[in-house]
């Protein structure tokens, strides 16, 4: 009667209608009950952008004799086969999603700010394209909102916020770097997936505190309540429709109303907005704050945060979400193939210190690449999650865009040219997919500024510029306006 698939609790119609489990939320923006002719428009209206931030750059060519281990070997079409042939590149981990990828090189995160530290300015620049309010590395704040906030502000219901999550350690140094409400107003990210889940779906107050049951039970109660209410409403609609003294126009309108109620219930078993089942909720609810902010828990936490993010966008709760992995200059000791590596920041500097000097780390470039592989694998879990949720027009991934980005281009140099941007999802066909593009002309050492990358993402999901056209003026006014045509379908 039920089946679990990638941690999603699917509920059959009969079971749902009997209120036995019903771990499903019939929230707004469910495509399944939108008339077919409106599907294309509805899909566009549910566009979203998800940003996963990795710190400390990636291991790419350009540092001494270090080989290229990040970018695909050739510009142009990406296929599972071509990416599989690039097995020495971190991005090849994503080969199963090749057809949905848009990998972008040739972007420069122009240093319009001196925040006193490459990590400090990288963190505040990467989603804001903004200047800072000073050079104090720990106190410097962006002088603009971030792109996730812009998307939420324009596209979400008034007063709602973008989803701002994190995974991994806090060190008291650049703990939260990504999301800004406005100039000087940076958000604190939620570390614990279960808290984020409860807050989003309103299941943590009355239901959880007084019901004494699990979150799944609360969801079941919600579904059962909806069934009872819907039964009552349907009976009222039926009585109204039974009235013979009804104009054809009124009858038609009431029938559409009745159909919408029915479609919502039918949609509950087949739409993307499906609550998590116990197989996901039980382990998620056991992740404590200290575990979520530990080296040991960082990847598991991030994976659960992705489940929360996917559900949030599927149910129309948010249109923008960020996940910051690790603190500002990520000191996490990641584990690769069972081996715990040195602190990532040290690896990125290739020495056992936060500076340029110190004992050399043997094979540091390889270890940096291994951390990149960990992140690639993590990003793949997000893409798997978004792909597993189906809509009448495809998968949830098709409706939006997920972006794996960094706040630096590489480690040792803290470079900001050739920033690594890996996108997936076309936002309903607005972005190219299955391709690796050069936004500038890297061969001629020409780069486009990263505000254009943010503009492109913002425009694709539906944000507007001051004149009402597609977004092209996000970020600091000193940066040239525009989008990146190579990214647009």
């Amino acid at each position, binding site marked *: 009667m039920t089946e679990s698939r990638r941690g999603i609790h699917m509920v059959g119609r009969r079971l749902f209608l009997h209120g036995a489990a019903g771990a499903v939320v019939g929230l707004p923006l469910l495509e399944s*009950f939108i008339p077919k002719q*409106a599907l294309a428009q509805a899909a566009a209206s549910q566009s979203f952008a998800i940003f996963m931030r990795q710190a400390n750059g990636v291991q790419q060519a350009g540092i001494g004799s270090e080989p290229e281990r990040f970018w695909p070997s050739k510009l142009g079409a990406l296929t599972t086969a071509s990416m599989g042939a690039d097995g020495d590149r971190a991005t090849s981990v994503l080969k199963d999603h090749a057809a949905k990828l848009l990998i972008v090189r040739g972007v420069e995160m122009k240093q319009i700010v001196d925040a006193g530290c490459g990590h400090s300015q990288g963190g505040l620049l990467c989603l804001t394209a903004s200047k800072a309010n000073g050079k104090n590395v720990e106190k410097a704040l962006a002088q603009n909102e971030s792109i996730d906030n812009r998307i939420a502000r324009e596209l979400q219901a008034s007063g709602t916020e973008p989803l701002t999550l994190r995974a991994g350690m806090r060190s008291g140094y650049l703990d939260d770097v990504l999301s800004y409400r406005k100039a000087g107003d940076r958000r604190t990210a939620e570390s614990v997936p279960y808290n984020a889940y409860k807050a989003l779906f309103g299941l943590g*107050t009355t239901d959880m505190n*007084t019901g004494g049951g699990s979150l799944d039970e609360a969801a079941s*109660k919600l579904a059962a*309540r909806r069934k009872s*209410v819907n039964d009552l*409403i349907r009976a009222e609609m039926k009585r109204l429709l039974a009235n013979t003294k009804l*104009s054809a126009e009124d009858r038609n309108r009431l029938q*559409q109303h009745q159909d919408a109620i029915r479609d919502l219930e039918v949609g509950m078993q087949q739409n993307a907005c499906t609550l998590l089942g116990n197989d996901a909720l039980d382990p998620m609810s056991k992740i404590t704050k200290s575990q979520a902010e530990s080296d040991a828990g960082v990847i598991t936490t991030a994976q659960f945060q992705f489940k929360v993010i996917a559900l949030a966008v599927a149910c129309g709760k948010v249109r923008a979400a960020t996940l910051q992995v690790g603190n500002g200059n990520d000191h996490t000791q990641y584990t690769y193939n069972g081996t715990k590596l040195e602190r990532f920041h040290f690896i990125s500097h290739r020495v056992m210190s936060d500076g340029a000097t110190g004992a050399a780390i043997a094979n540091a470039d390889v270890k940096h690449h291994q951390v990149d592989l960990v992140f690639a694998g993590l990003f793949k879990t997000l893409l798997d999650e978004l792909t597993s949720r189906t809509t009448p027009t495809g998968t949830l991934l098709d409706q939006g865009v997920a972006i794996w980005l960094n706040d630096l281009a590489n480690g040792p140099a803290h470079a900001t040219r050739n920033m690594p941007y890996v996108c997936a999802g076309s936002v309903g066909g607005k972005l190219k997919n299955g391709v690796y593009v050069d936004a500038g002309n890297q061969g001629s050492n020409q780069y486009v500024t990263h505000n254009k990358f943010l503009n492109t993402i913002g425009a694709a999901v539906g944000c507007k510029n001051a004149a009402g056209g597609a977004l092209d003026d996000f970020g600091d006014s000193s940066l040239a306006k525009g989008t990146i045509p190579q990214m647009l379908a």
Partner: protein
Amino acid sequence: MFRSPNRSFFPALTAGTLLLAACSGEIAGPGGGLALESGDQNGGAGPKANDGVTGGGGHVSAGDPATPNGVGWSTRYPKLSNSQWEKSVQQLFYLADVTGQQDALAAERADALFDTIAAAEATIGGDSWGRYQSAAENVAESIVGDAAKLAKLTPSGTFADANAKGTAFIKAFGRRAYRRPLTTEEQTTYTTLFKSGASLVGSGDAYKDGVRVVLEAMLQSPFFLYRVEQSTKANGDRKVALSGDEIASRLSYALWGTMPTDELFAAASAGELDKKEGVAKWANTLLADPKAEEALVAFHEQIYQVDQYGGQVKSASFGFDAEALAPALRQEAHLFIEDVILKQKGGIADLLTQPVGYVNQDTAKFYGLTGVSGSELQKRDLDPETRAGLFTQLGFLAKNATSANSDPVHRGLMIVRKVLCDDPDPPPMMFNLPEMKPGLTTREVYEETTQCGGQCHNTLINPPGFAFEGFDTVGQVRDTDNGKPVDAASALEIRQGYTSADKKKSPSTMLEFDGAVDMLTQLADTPRVHECYARNWMAYLLAREVDPAERGAWEAIAKTSQDSAAVRNMITALVQLDTFRTRVADGT
């Protein structure tokens, strides 16, 4: 005054009559909507021409259009607008502030004559149902989670148990949510639902859980989401008298944009609204309350499209930053309407003629005013030789203009459609505003370009537009255009009748004028203008397009407009008519 150097353009047009076979555009939506035609203007049973719905009885009207007793068809399920939903929730729960939930409801179409019409005709389909569901759940949760809010809904007295208390709650709250007493069957159904609250919510507080689930249901009920009119007993002329509760809702939503107060419900229950005198009394009560002011002003802002002021980019040479000035231009109109309608208790004649503006340091110069400082708008008398009312203020003039030139067609169409309720044939599909030519004034170019439009342009559209030729693209007074003297003299055909048949058999009159002030002053005394104003008010208050069968009704109200000018008097007159207190029987 603007003087015409050459009046020979209208050598044959003098005050008199003129019968036209062309320009057969229909009048349907008051203020110029899409043409709708009632099959039988004498109250027959012919369906509307655009009634694409099969089955049922079709749209019919009842009553003699020659009297004030005509009634047009109306839906029995006008949906609350998002704003009405929000205000109703606020009042239902006696909240100090609105919930903000309306922001998550489905957006309403913006192309209807009034927002209330758009909402009333809307269907709860697609994703809008899910949005209502979420909003209802959020509101219910917030109410039961706040002891003070819950207490306001809790019946007083001593009860044997939670269920008995719940039964009393359902009766009292249901009467307000449904805007009528619950039936015995409904009371039973909700009592059953209430009892299930303990298991469906499971907080341990049976009363609170029951209330929560009942609130969720009532806020999703069609009887809350629609302003349902269930009365069905028709009299001999197919009119169905509305119940007191139904009239209470019509009154309250029309004038306050929200559900009736407890006092109005009590009056309905006491039968006070069964007589037209009682309806008039309560209309006056509501109109005397500040809560009615929003509706009185919003009517004018919507019909005259004030929200579009400032949306037209101007050539830099004019120094008119439309985007920056937009708030001031809209606020000027708002303050002017407030002053005329609310403070002066005036009407359309005052709106058309009073030479008043509200200016700040940024807009004063375009009126030729000096000595104005600060960003706050200040009331100023304008030159009565050149300015008269809303349509000579900067907002209207700049909206209906191109980036560098006046636009006689769109200035004229506003007068024709929204002031005279006439509706010329639509333009050709590929119509573009003409480009200016060296040595020609704007008027000369338009006259040359719109020749093919025949009499529509020559007698209906262009004349009122040419009256505004004394104003440039940003609304500044000008004497010359492209180096030549401005010609603002013209003659406008005032057509009679509101259907093609009526227009064919009714004589037209010609209104000669020289300039905007002259034209607007004459229009203020023109019966057709007051009829149009009355029609628009009927549409606004009834939340539907009016029907030709209701001609007698708007003509009666128009007399009130012309005699007393006060909008409040018009409304009081309207609510006593059959068109407000009855509906036409549907179906078989």
